[in-house]
Structures are given as structure tokens and as C-alpha cells.
């Protein structure tokens, strides 16, 4: 039974759309060691993490006992050669039996007493059954060992098995008892084996595979769609389960419904329909239900509106908190964006208010429909060099981004950055009207055509100008330029303005004066989580004031609400930006430092609409002020 099911799953994955995840082998092996064996991501939450680790490590140690039981069931006097007679191993077995039992007690306590919200929507009965089966596996093992000792059948020194030895003294010792236990043990294991591939416990087979093939670098990069392949191989996101990549299928198989993703999701936390867990469960349930039809080449139903409600797909801010949290390395954003791609490019069905953003990006090269000719007007009077066609590239190209070029609040950071670079004597210039949107908001909305058109155009401009090093103020531009443009022939050293400024402060080229102002720094998702920039902005904050941290910071930051093109969409229910402002106000700081133009606008709006007294300001502006004082 288990074999037949396994064959079905393998055939599904082989039918999945291609995706190359075979590069970077050393990193994959390291991930396997730390995330799977070391349980690194599980241990982000200490108590549930230790609970799981105890059971997981326990079963690794206990695995040979299954073979021993299989041998012992057939031939009562036989066991595994050598290992079966080792006292130290039997001591370890007993220790880990205890660990597993303790783990189960903690798991039951978490599920029945603590009842965290992250389990909302999960299959709770299934989890109880699995816990009971695990308990039975180790209890029958313990009974078998104890009854062997009681019957004098132990090949190993009995005193080594401190637990079984003790149990053997309190149980009756009829000669058949070890037979009963060994067969009970094997029956439980075989039952488990058959149930496993039909349940969420399938993760014990697929999680290790999923972790191995997860992204190893350029985490903020989306897989580009290929428009240069024959039409039969072309893919426009995921309309039905036939369009899923094999990795998306393994993602779906691996979900344990633990709900860590749901717990950190800003959309879920503010009462939206979206739960990343329910997205993956919806994809999985539809994949299993339609799997036979998929393999038979029959017609399939769309995923959007069936397995996954459309509203869920649009609620996502692509902040990546779920991906970062997931213990089995599921990549939720890929699923969401693939579903959006199908809705936008094939069905033309998306929130109507985002239409003008998509049209303006496509038509005039920025999301607000402002004239391209006004792109450099923010820099008037600041003495910034604009690289014209045919002119030599500066040492560093400052990529301004649409927000800083056109939005009054966002441009303050660009003005500050320029002043600082000039003061430190950095050779830099901007592209002016030759810069355009990187295509990021269109791509996150699902419009891959528009994104790729801009990627090609911008790469051509940058390469033609001989640009090698770019500093960007906008983390979304930074992500596209650094992580996504290499797919289109653009390879540059891309850094964020806070990274360059921190370097200048370290080198003594900028000497800020420290004040007593309490500052809490809000990490942008695309900076801290997708691009690992969290240290440098903090260095700058510490150089100008007294830093205080919010509970959710660094790689576990909480979105401002603008990501995934939500800057140009309407929000239902409680606003994410007001929630983040509330978290910031809790620290008691008077200044909320940011390093992203969208965070600036969103959080400033949040401060105003919630009527709080907080100053939202870019780190670069704080630095300018500390120098002017």
C-alpha cells in the first residue's frame, strides 16, 4: 500500500514542470545538515522545537531497532550482528525512548492545553492519531526489550538498559510476552507506514528532499518565466495543478500544517483571508484529488477559486516571513506569484484598483504615471552628475528608484544620501531620465511580460554605460537589480545606501555625533529577510542615537504592508501599517527609523491615521542631521 502510494507521488513529481535546483551543492549539503539534522528552523521556537527534535533525533537513533524487531520476530534468538549486543547502544535506545515520550507529552500539552492560534485550520484529529501511533511505537519497543530481559533473551548487558531493565522487574514474565510485544511493535510500524503517505506525516519522507532543493542564495529572486521556448513548453504561472513545478509539488507534500507561517503572516495577523498554510494545504489537497487526472492527461479545474480562494492570492505582501519560518523550507511566495501570473496574464482577473499601476508601469515606466522627464527634478540644485549616453560610468551608480524620484516623502532620503556621498567624496552619478521602473511591482503582481521588458531595457542601459557598482535606496530595486537582473545578463555589485554609508562611517569619512534620542529601526522585508542587510542600518542608528529593538526585527521583521505591489492596492480590514506602528510605539522610542521608501510612506501614513507621536525618518536623514548639529 505504502509502495503504491509512493509510486503515485513520484509519478506526480516527475510530471511537474521543470526547474533547475542542482547548483550550489555544498550549500545544499550544509542546509541538509543544519535544517534537517540540526533542526535549525524548528528551534527558532524553543519549546516546540525541542519537542520535535527529541522525537526526530529519537527516531534516528531508534531506526536500527526496527530491523532488530523484524529479525527478532522471525527468529527469537537472533538480532542485528554486533550492534544488537552493544550495551552503550541499548543505553542510548532507552534514553531516546524517554526523550520521545517526553516529546509526546510536550506535544500533547501544546496541542491540548496551550492551543496556539497557528493550528487554526489544521487537521487536529490527524495529528492526535499520529502522536498516538508514535507513542505506541516506542511503548511496544520498550515492552519488547523489557520482556526480553525478563525472559533472559537479551544479547546485551541488561544493566545498560536502565529503563527496560527496571520495567522488566515490574511486568509479569510469561514466556510469550516478548512475542506479543515484538509483533505488536511491527504491526504498529507497518500500520504507520501505510497511513503515513496519506497523511501530513508524509513530511518525514519529503521534508529532507524539500530542504535540499530549496533556494540557497538570491532568496528574493523569482524564477523567470521563459518566453523563448516552444509554446508547448511555455508556462504562464500556475492555472491548474498541471502547471506546478516539481518543487511546488514537493512543497505541498512536505507541509505538516504546523502553522508557523500563519503565525508570522502580517496579512493573517490583521484579519485578512490569507494564511500561507491554507494556500499550501489547498494546493496539496487539489493536487492529490486531481493527481490521477493529471497523470491521465484529463481536463483539470483551476487552482484559483477552487483549492485556493482568489482573495487569498491577492492578500499576500510577498514579505517572505512564512518562507523564513517554515521548518521544511516550503517556498510559499513561488506558489502565490505563480497563481497571480495565471490570473493576470491568462485570465486578466485581478484587483481592479491595481490596473492603473500596471498600465502606468508599462506605459510611462513608473507606477504613478508621472512624466519620465520629471525623473531627475528632485536632484535640481544638488549638483548631482547625470550620466548621459556615451559618457564614462562613475565608480558608483546611484539607482534612485521611482518612489524617491516622484514621492515627496520618499525623496528626502535620496536628498540625504546624495549630501552624504558628496560630503564623503564618493564618485557617483545618477541615470536621470534613462532610469525606469525595475519592473518589480509588475512582477510581484504577476505581470511577468512587463517585468522582463523593463529588465531587458534597464540591463541594456546599465551595460552600455559600463556600470559595475550600484547603490540603491529602495530595497525592492536592490532586490531586482541584484537578485533578478543576472537572469537577464545584468551582473553588478549592488548595495543598499545604508551599507555604503556604514562603510563610510567605519572608514571615518563621515563622523556622526551621537544623540540621546531613542530610535527603533524597522527592517524592510526586502532588505533584511530577502537580502540579509540588517547589521549596517543598525550600525548607523547606533552611531546617531540610542537604539531600541521591536520584538519582531531582523530576519523576523513584520511588513509595513506595501510589498507584493500592495502599495497600489486597497486593503481590507485592519491595516498592516497601523499594526506595525503600534509595535514600534510599544518600544517607547520617539523615532521610527526606516531604510525603504515604501516603509517610509506606509509607516508615516500609519502614524498619522493612528494619531501617534512618532517621527518616521530614513536612516540617511538621521545621519545628515547628526552631522549638521
Amino acid at each position, binding site marked *: 500500500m505504502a509502495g503504491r502510494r509512493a509510486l503515485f507521488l513520484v509519478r506526480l513529481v516527475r510530471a511537474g514542470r521543470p526547474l533547475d535546483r542542482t547548483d550550489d551543492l555544498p550549500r545544499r549539503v550544509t542546509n541538509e545538515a543544519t535544517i534537517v539534522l540540526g533542526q535549525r528552523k524548528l528551534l527558532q521556537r524553543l519549546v516546540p522545537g525541542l519537542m520535535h527534535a527529541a522525537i526526530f533525533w529519537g527516531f534516528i537513533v531508534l531506526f536500527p531497532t526496527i530491523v532488530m524487531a523484524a529479525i527478532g520476530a522471525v527468529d527469537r534468538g537472533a538480532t542485528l550482528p554486533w550492534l544488537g549486543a552493544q550495551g552503550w547502544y541499548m543505553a542510548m535506545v532507552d534514553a531516546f525512548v524517554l526523550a520521545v515520550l517526553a516529546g509526546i507529552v510536550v506535544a500533547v500539552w501544546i496541542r491540548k492545553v496551550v492551543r496556539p492560534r497557528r493550528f487554526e485550520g489544521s487537521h487536529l484529529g490527524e495529528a492526535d492519531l499520529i502522536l498516538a501511533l508514535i507513542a505506541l511505537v516506542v511503548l511496544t519497543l520498550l515492552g519488547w526489550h523489557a520482556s526480553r530481559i525478563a525472559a533472559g533473551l537479551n544479547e546485551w548487558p541488561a544493566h545498560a538498559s536502565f529503563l527496560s531493565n527496571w520495567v522488566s522487574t515490574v511486568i509479569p514474565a510469561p514466556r510469550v510476552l516478548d512475542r506479543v510485544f515484538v509483533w505488536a511493535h511491527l504491526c504498529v510500524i507497518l500500520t504507520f507506514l501505510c497511513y503515513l503517505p496519506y497523511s501530513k506525516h508524509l513530511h518525514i519522507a519529503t521534508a529532507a528532499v524539500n530542504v535540499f532543493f530549496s533556494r540557497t542564495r538570491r532568496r528574493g529572486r523569482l524564477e523567470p518565466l521563459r518566453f523563448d521556448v516552444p509554446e508547448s513548453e511555455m508556462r504562464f504561472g500556475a492555472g491548474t495543478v498541471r502547471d506546478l513545478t516539481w518543487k511546488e509539488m514537493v512543497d505541498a507534500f512536505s507541509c505538516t500544517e504546523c502553522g508557523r507561517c500563519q503565525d508570522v503572516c502580517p496579512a493573517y495577523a490583521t484579519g485578512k483571508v490569507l494564511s500561507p498554510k491554507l494556500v499550501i494545504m489547498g494546493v496539496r489537497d487539489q493536487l492529490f484529488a486531481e493527481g490521477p487526472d493529471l497523470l491521465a492527461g484529463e481536463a483539470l479545474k483551476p487552482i484559483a477559486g477552487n483549492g485556493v480562494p482568489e482573495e487569498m492570492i491577492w492578500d499576500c505582501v510577498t514579505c517572505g516571513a512564512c518562507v523564513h519560518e517554515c521548518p521544511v523550507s516550503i517556498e510559499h511566495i513561488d506558489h502565490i506569484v505563480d497563481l497571480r501570473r495565471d490570473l493576470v496574464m491568462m485570465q486578466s482577473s485581478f484587483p481592479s484598483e491595481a490596473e492603473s499601476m500596471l498600465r502606468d508601469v508599462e506605459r510611462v515606466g513608473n507606477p504613478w504615471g508621472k512624466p519620465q522627464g520629471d525623473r531627475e527634478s528632485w536632484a535640481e540644485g544638488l549638483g548631482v552628475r547625470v550620466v548621459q549616453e556615451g559618457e564614462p560610468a562613475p565608480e558608483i551608480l546611484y539607482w534612485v528608484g521611482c*518612489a524617491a524620484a516622484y514621492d515627496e516623502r520618499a525623496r528626502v532620503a535620496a536628498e540625504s544620501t546624495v549630501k552624504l556621498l558628496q560630503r564623503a567624496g564618493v564618485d557617483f552619478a545618477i541615470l536621470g531620465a534613462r532610469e525606469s521602473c525595475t519592473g518589480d511591482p509588475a512582477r510581484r503582481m504577476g505581470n511577468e511580460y512587463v517585468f522582463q521588458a523593463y529588465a531587458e531595457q534597464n540591463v541594456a542601459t546599465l551595460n552600455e554605460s559600463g556600470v559595475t557598482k550600484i547603490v540603491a535606496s529602495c530595497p525592492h530595486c536592490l532586490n531586482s537589480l541584484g537578485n533578478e537582473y543576472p537572469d537577464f545578463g545584468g551582473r553588478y555589485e549592488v548595495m543598499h545606501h545604508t551599507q555604503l554609508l556604514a562603510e563610510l562611517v567605519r572608514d571615518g569619512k563621515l563622523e556622526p555625533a551621537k544623540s540621546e534620542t531613542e530610535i527603533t529601526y524597522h527592517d524592510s522585508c526586502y532588505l533584511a529577510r530577502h537580502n540579509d542587510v540588517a547589521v549596517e542600518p543598525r550600525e548607523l542608528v547606533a552611531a546617531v542615537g540610542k537604539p531600541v529593538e521591536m520584538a519582531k526585527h531582523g530576519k523576523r521583521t513584520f511588513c509595513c504592508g506595501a510589498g507584493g505591489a500592495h502599495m497600489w492596492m486597497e486593503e481590507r480590514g485592519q491595516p498592516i501599517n497601523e499594526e506595525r506602528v503600534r509595535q514600534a510605539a510599544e518600544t517607547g522610542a520617539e523615532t521610527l527609523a526606516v531604510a525603504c521608501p515604501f516603509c517610509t510612506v506606509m509607516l508615516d501614513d500609519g502614524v498619522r491615521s493612528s494619531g501617534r507621536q512618532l517621527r518616521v525618518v530614513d536612516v540617511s536623514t538621521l545621519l545628515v542631521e547628526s552631522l549638521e548639529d
Partner: protein
Amino acid sequence: MTVVVFMESPDDELSRQALTLAQSLDGDVQAVTVDGPYAPAAWAKAIVEAAGDADVVGPGSDRGNEVLAHVAAQLDLPFAANVTEVRGDELTRIRWGGTLLEEARLHAPRRLLTAAPFAFPPLSVESTQSRVLTPELDGAVAVVDHVAPDTGGKVSLADAKVVVSGGRGVGSAEGFAILEELAALLDAAVGCSRVVTSAGWRPHTDQVGQTGTKVSPDLYIACGISGATQHIAGCKGAKKLLAINADREATIFAHADYAVVGDLHEIVPAITAELRKARSS
């Protein structure tokens, strides 16, 4: 050589401008109009059949561009939209939402063009021979009916010549009464910013901005609106902008043609009173 001009109707302004462009192409100009419900692919097919190997020119309207795009697709030929000037196979066209003039060359045996709106003086259709085409609608998508949204008898935001818009500064749903009063006098529509709809003071249908309605009235009166980019994106089409705001530093003033620094709760009723006085005298 013949030049076929697709006209939405004989007296349509943009179509008559397209005629002017066609006359500059030296050839016999032949105007065509199409009979029956709007069906872009079917209309294009009729035009392709009528045109033989002639150049085809259309107006730079939504319909003109759509029909010509279908013509180009059916012939598998390049098409240049919003053209301002033609010199043989070289031309100048408007791109990037009107911010860029592009010099381009058409690599094709015949030219498919639309005339940029208001780049050419209009001609009258009598100056040329014209004919009416009746396309075969079989298998084509055709427009059957238009349903205009119900605005409850008021001027719709998108069409209003004057818009009186309120932001956070209005303070409450009730605060909009003075804006309503002024709007009624000016035959204007009432709009608002996103903050207002988020607070539930006005419905989302009243929202002007990036994610709401984009308006282009002759006069936009922004009361207590700070002027975030998201809002400006919705009202930048206004010919004149009057901003009333208590905060002298508000960014809305950077976009305003007329600025009043002060409390809108005093200023708006004062404007209403002045208007009444002026009208009664």
C-alpha cells in the same frame, strides 16, 4: 497608390484629423466607415479586404488603435500608433504617455498608422470619396450594449467639471456637509482621499487617487488633503488645483495653482456664502 482611412464616423473629430495625415501621404485617399455593432476583429477584416495593398490610416482613439492593431495582426505587418509626422517610411510618433517623441522607421511594404490626437487639423470627409463597409460578424466578438454606472442623479466623479474633495482635515463624515453644499452650488462632484474611505466617512466610490477614480476636471478643490503621491496620481489631470490646508508645509501646495492656508471649516463656508451673494446680485 491608395490610402484607406478608417473613420469612426464622418464627423468624428479625431477621424477627420486622420484624414489630414492620410492626405500628406500622397496617394488617393479613400475614407471608410463601418456599419453595425463595434467588433474590432471583424471590422479589421473588412478593412483589410477593402484596402487591398493600400496604406491604412486610423484615428488615434481607443477604437482607432484597437482596429488598426487587429489590421496589423491579420496582415502580420508592423503598425505605428500616435504618429505626428510621416516622411516616406520614416515617422515621428508619441510614446511614453506623451512624454517622448520617437523617430522610427517602418520596415514594411505598406504603412499602417494612427494619427496622434490633435497633431493634425481636421478635414471634412466631403473632400474625399468615401464608402461604408458592412463586416461579417460571424465568429467575432461584438459589443452589444453599454451600461453606465448609476450615479444616483449626481454628476459622476470621472465626468465632473469641478470636484470638491476632502481629506483627513475634514475631520468626520458629518464634516463633508459643507463640501456637499459647495459642490451643489458648483454642480460639482464630491471626492475624497484614501484616509477618508479607510475611516469609513465616505464610500470607496468617492475616492480619488491611485487606487480610486482618476479625475480630470477643470477645477479640483482639495480641502484638508496633504497631497500624498497616491492622491496626486488621481487628480493630476485637473486643469487647475485649489488647495485649502491648515498646514503651510503640506505637499499639496507644491501641486496647487491656488493656495489658501487656513482652516477649511471656515474657508469652505465662506466661499459658499460669497458664491451665493454673487449669484443673487
